[in-house]
């Protein structure tokens, strides 16, 4: 018998009362199995306009699976997913493949840890951004050039190198190309899957700084998945802690780091401090 009860996480703090905070993303009751493994169990997520939601957890916690579902790459066994974007009123998981692909292309941007997943390494960097614009139906070459340059510039990519292929670029620059591609269509939601893992610490700081600036200046709503608490601490407004497919704790970033409630979060935070 434990002296202290672990707090059950569904606290009564969820419903916003200030009417100016609007959710962009709402996921409800997400459950999924891979064979015998319960990858996600009854997960609820809300992401509000303009905020950065950090998701932490060790590998196998389900955080990356959840992110893939947000990106509509994967469907859960159960659950409901809505995005506050024009024309999307239904559960997005119920859409057909084609509609999901179009929605993903137009409204969701993603930056992967591994640039090979997000980029055509031998095409030009600007071409990688152009592909996104082409999917949205842009057919003017001049506009592909100018819009591509703008997106790269916003990602603080040196535009004089815009036609160099990613394979010739450093890891940090490759992430900037991914970012430019992700924001080219001004997505409602930007997903970041360990975007700076594997980069040198100094490069990591620069990339995070760019992300912060984009978030500040364009109020892009972001979901950031990372196992790196430092990254989450720098970036996130709110944090969700996942373990074994469940959300064990959710709170304001400073609260999670200064006064973690759940035993798992406490061990996670203290192990890193």
């Amino acid at each position, binding site marked *: 018998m*434990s002296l202290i009860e672990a707090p059950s996480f569904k606290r009564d703090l969820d419903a916003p009362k*200030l009417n100016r905070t609007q959710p962009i993303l709402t996921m409800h009751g997400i459950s999924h199995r891979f064979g015998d493994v319960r990858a996600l169990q009854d997960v609820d997520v809300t992401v509000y306009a303009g905020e950065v939601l950090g998701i932490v957890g060790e590998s196998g916690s389900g955080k990356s699976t959840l992110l893939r579902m947000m990106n509509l790459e994967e469907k859960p066994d159960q659950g409901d997913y809505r995005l506050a974007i024009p024309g999307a009123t239904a559960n997005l998981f119920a859409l057909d493949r084609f509609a999901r692909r179009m929605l993903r292309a137009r409204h969701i941007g993603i930056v992967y840890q591994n640039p090979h997943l997000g980029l055509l390494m031998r095409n030009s960097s600007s071409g990688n951004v152009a592909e996104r614009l082409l999917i949205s139906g842009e057919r003017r070459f001049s506009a592909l050039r100018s819009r591509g340059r703008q997106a790269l510039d916003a990602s603080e990519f040196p535009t004089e190198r815009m036609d160099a292929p990613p394979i010739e670029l450093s890891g940090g620059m490759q992430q900037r190309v991914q970012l430019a591609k992700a924001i080219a269509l001004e997505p409602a939601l930007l997903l970041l899957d360990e975007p700076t893992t594997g980069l040198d610490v100094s490069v990591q700081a620069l990339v995070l700084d760019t992300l912060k600036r984009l978030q500040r200046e364009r109020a892009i709503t972001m979901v950031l998945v990372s196992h790196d608490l430092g990254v989450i601490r720098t970036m996130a407004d709110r944090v969700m802690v996942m373990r074994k497919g469940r959300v064990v704790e959710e709170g304001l970033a400073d*609260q999670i780091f200064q006064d973690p409630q759940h035993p798992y979060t406490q061990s996670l935070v203290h192990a890193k401090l």
Partner: protein
Amino acid sequence: MSDPVLEVENLAKHFDIHHLQQRVFAFSGVGFRLFPGQFLLLRGSNGVGKSTLLRTLYRSYVPKGGHIWFDAAEGRIDLATAADVDVAALRRRDIGFVTQFLIARPRVAAEELVAEPLRLAGWPKAQALDEAHRWLDEFGVKRELWRAYPTTFSGGEQQKINLARALVLPQRLLLLDEPTASLDAGARRALIRRLGALKLQGVAMIGVFHHKEDIAELIDMELTLTVKEMADVAE
């Protein structure tokens, strides 16, 4: 008289340290009302939980009982149980927290850091920078540092940037956690002047100060925290 900005009722806080199976008591039964323009000084010996109370009010710490009623434009909202996203919104708009520690960001210049709250509040860039310069000057930050990155500054200089940023925009409630520590005399005077001005503008404040005499003329109320006991409020 107008409504109180903040009405705290029976507030309690303890920490559960799970791996030790231990509960650490902080305080309980704290209650007070704070009206616009009032200044509440928190008192008590070291380790008694003054900073803990400030952080609980700010919701960096999770309250374990009681209420923190805040008078928001939308109506009274209990910060003890408000949704995270609402607390975040109030922090951006109405509630400031000033510590002696700056979280500097690489490659952001001092003037940009100070101007940022104004920019977020919708000020035009030039005007925001002018205002930022005024406060940097006021706190005695040398002009040649305005465009430099505070990550490279000394602790004292960083603290000045931090204060300028925290105080540049009048908010409705300011939580001050030893803001004068590590400040030189000039900056300390500038800070007190600024707090006085904000008080006149109706900003309510709750502070922990090492040297009470610094801000003696601002104080309206004192709240003394005693170890393991209820706090007493003295007018």
